[in-house]
């Protein structure tokens, strides 16, 4: 399916000679464009009112363990796959030269990106728990080399920290998966099929332990306080393009996993742990926001804002109303784009200035008006200004949460006020005021960069005014997840617009 396109591209790319850098870039860009086109074609065929998995494909992989190559997508997965495949070409185009300073050839960089893209599509579409786990873990390897090989500063330390955190979480999940597998052997014949595993009977103690195995892995991935410490380091050291994929797409695997695996496989345990998780999510929202305000480094700042945003997403998921879950899914999509915009534009600013310290910028509005406006718009999207896409999702999450956990929703609202601070302060320091010496001659965006950022900003604005196309896809899936859990919404759902 679509997943194999980038992989084929990567293999073909590997045959190119090392010196053909431009060719490698063009080829990688072309491959991601084709992938995006085929994914969009798939999205058009997607029947949005059908809550069953679609585009299902099952092939036997390791029959002796009952493992299948099984893929299929629902609305939630579709939205996330779309986000991934649209961001991939944008990242390549925006960071056209970012592979230059790396340890290895430019070609290797794009091979890693394409392999990663294959795995991103795979991880969102897997319906076999084992397949999901395999991709979930194997994904770490290309990202590890992307950070460690092409990043800046303390890149190898950051890469190792990222890898060890994720591996640790992954192994806890493996323990849970083994337990599920063994239990399935007793009850239904060995299988890893998500739907069959969801029907296993187990004691509530077992369920709680297994839930924790999965949840901690996902909480590390989509950094939830207190599992977040790897993220700022990784984001600071990675190239902007890698950061977009890392925060924009990879971390979504965590929140996606919470919906797809934690809620589906362990409904009872999910309910048991909800209060704790909501508290952690609220702490993440406030903590991420406060730390973001204090950051001097632009990339770290964006990383901490993301921790705050992931808090919102997690809260939306575990508030267990279809509204909050639709909101959370939409939030994942929007966060992908607004973080991408921030990192891409921020990356350009950093590359031009040669520094990522916020106080080194200043007066960019006068010197580079287009770049400054782009950054401003991205920032506004991050603080969820009404009229921009994130507002819709944040609003849905808060409203949906309020119906069940009013206190949490009210405290989380404080996060929005803090968001205004953490965005407006750097905007003021970097864009306005007198031009800092040394910044007078910075070049503005060139045509390539304008083309790269345009679709992101367009999506942010368009979905802010008219989110219905996405919500129509997400809503049935979210309602379906909730009904499986046996939850009905506390108040009649209003069609989110």
């Amino acid at each position, binding site marked *: 399916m679509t997943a194999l396109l980038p992989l084929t591209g990567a293999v073909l790319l590997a045959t190119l000679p090392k010196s053909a850098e431009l060719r490698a870039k063009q080829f990688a860009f072309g491959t991601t464009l084709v992938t995006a086109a085929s994914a969009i074609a798939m999205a058009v065929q997607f029947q949005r009112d059908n809550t069953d998995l679609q585009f299902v494909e099952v092939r036997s992989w390791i029959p002796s363990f009952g493992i299948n190559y099984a893929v299929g997508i629902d609305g939630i997965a579709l939205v996330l796959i779309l986000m991934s495949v649209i961001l991939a070409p944008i990242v390549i185009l925006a960071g056209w030269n970012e592979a230059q300073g790396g340890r290895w050839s430019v070609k290797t960089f794009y091979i890693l990106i394409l392999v990663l893209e294959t795995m991103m599509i795979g991880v969102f579409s897997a319906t076999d728990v084992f397949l999901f786990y395999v991709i979930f*873990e194997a994904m770490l390897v290309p990202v590890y080399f992307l950070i*460690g090989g092409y990043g800046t500063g303390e890149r*190898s330390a950051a890469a*190792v920290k990222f890898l060890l955190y994720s591996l640790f979480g992954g192994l806890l999940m493996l323990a849970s998966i083994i337990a599920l597998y063994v239990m399935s052997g007793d009850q239904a014949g060995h299988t890893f099929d998500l739907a069959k595993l969801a029907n296993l009977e187990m004691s509530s103690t077992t369920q709680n332990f297994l839930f924790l195995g999965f949840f901690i892995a996902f909480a590390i991935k989509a950094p939830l306080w207190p599992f977040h410490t790897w993220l700022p380091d990784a984001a600071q050291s990675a190239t902007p393009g890698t950061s977009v994929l890392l925060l924009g797409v990879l971390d979504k695997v965590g929140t996606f996993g919470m919906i797809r695996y934690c809620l589906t496989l362990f409904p009872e345990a999910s309910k048991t742990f909800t209060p704790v998780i909501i508290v952690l999510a609220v702490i993440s929202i406030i903590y991420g926001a406060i730390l973001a305000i204090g950051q001097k480094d632009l990339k770290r700042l964006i990383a901490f804002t993301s921790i705050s945003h992931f808090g919102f997403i997690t809260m939306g998921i575990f508030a267990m109303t279809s509204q909050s879950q639709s909101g959370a899914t939409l939030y994942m999509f929007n966060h992908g784009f607004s973080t991408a915009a921030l990192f891409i534009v921020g990356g350009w600013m950093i590359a031009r200035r040669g520094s990522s310290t916020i106080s080194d910028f200043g007066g960019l509005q006068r010197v580079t008006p287009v770049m400054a406006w782009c950054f401003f718009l991205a920032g506004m999207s991050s603080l969820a200004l009404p009229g921009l896409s994130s507002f819709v999702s944040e609003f849905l999450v808060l409203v949906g949460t309020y119906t069940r956990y009013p206190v949490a929703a009210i405290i989380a609202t404080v996060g929005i006020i803090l968001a205004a601070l953490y965005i407006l302060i750097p905007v003021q320091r970097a864009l306005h005021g007198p031009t800092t010496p040394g910044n007078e001659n910075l070049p503005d965006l060139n045509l390539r960069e304008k083309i790269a950022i345009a679709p992101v900003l367009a999506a942010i604005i368009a979905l802010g005014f008219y989110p219905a196309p996405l919500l129509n896809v997400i809503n049935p899936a979210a309602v379906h997840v909730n009904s499986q859990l046996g939850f009905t919404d506390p108040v009649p759902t209003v069609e989110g617009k």
Partner: protein
Amino acid sequence: MVFNSPTLSYSLLAPILIILSGALIGVLIEAFVGKTRRPAVQLSVALSSLVLALIQVIRIRDLSSTTAAMGSVVIDGPGLLFQGAILIIAIISIFLIADQDNFTASPAALPGSDEERQATQSGTVLTEIYPLTLFAVAGMLLFPIASDLITLFVALEVLSLPLYLMAGLSRHRRLASQEAALKYFLLGAFSSAFFLFGSAYLYGYAGTVSFAGIHAAVVGGTGNDVILLLGIAFVAIGLLFKVGAVPFHAWSPDVYQGAPTPITGFMAAATKVAAFGAMLRLFYTVLAEAQWQWRPFFMVIAIITMIFGSLVAISQRDVKRMLAYSSIAHAGFLLTGVIALNKAGLEASIYYLFAYGVATVGAFGIVTLVRDSSGEVSDLNRWAGLGKRSPWVASAFAFFLLAFAGIPLTSGFIGKFAIFSAAYESGATAVVIVGVLSSAIAAFFYIRVIVLMFFTDATEDGTSVVIPSILTRLTIFISLVITVALGVFPAPLLDFIKPLAIFIR
């Protein structure tokens, strides 16, 4: 008195007989073939006897489930699988052993003496290594199919004695190599004594040395349980020594470091298969009904082996010592397969042993390539920046390390998954949790080597990767292909193992 001539079932014993005759021909070649032609002749004899033996193993797979040599050997599915694995590993390693630069030209000469220098300069090569390898292989083939304690002991000695010798044959750092050989020999002799001691107790308990007889006695339960317990404990110690489980592991870091690297790879891989093969047979069939006596003991050993191996490996600065501790950790993971005591555990153990063995030979093959003017460089600090200078070699090594760490899409992951799920199925939850956690610890030191190779700049120079000979390249390439294939498409091998993995008593 009537003497019955023993019936031997030669075709079933043929793999061992082929290897032994290959070894004997090798000895004759040493005596009668000229020096210059010896290496090529020896290599082809060794290789062809290994291949012939493998073919014979494949041919008799349908005749299995029977006994041979008057019941002192049992030919069944698992036994043949172990033999096949040992032979494949031996074939891969024989290419590595063929790189004579690893072996001293004249083992009898004093290290640093004129005699040694002359021998080295004259270009003499050590071809005795081939018959020695074959003798060891013969012992290894017999070990997992032995069906009474005496045969088991003979096989143990046949496989160990050549290995003791081979450990001392390194060309570089000969004193360390000889020390390793002596250590291995002394501790090995000690463990053999334990093994014999235990066998005597088991004989005292059952009144027979045959596995069937001991099994009957265990099932009957009429004997003295204390004697049974002592027998199990001492026999287990002898076997655990061979696989390097804590606290019987003390020899392995020194021997791994001191022995010539191709021998280390061969020994680490093939001995593990043979020893775990014998252990699985003994504990799955003969002593299965006595599991209350040995399972708790094994659980403790497995837990401390996994934790100790992973933790101590972190502090190693030498790549061979690091791999030694990693193999200790892997012995712990494999012990969870013994503890599982179910069919899934047996299948998983066979798969794991094969996957681990192949990756081990490949990894040590790469270690032989990293050298400076005075020989192999095993100091990890000097591996820094290897990824820049020789990206292919470094990438291959990184891949083997990822396989050891059990990252998905490598053979190691499937092995780990299979063996842990089998252990979990048997109710050994604690062992599985410790196993998963120590995998996380172990990942740390594997990844540190990858960081060193790829993300650290070389501090000094002088370390270089030699252009591998075609044979070494073949070893590494085959190991790599098998490791990838078993990681991505494990189904064919798993399906092949499944119907065969049934012990007969």
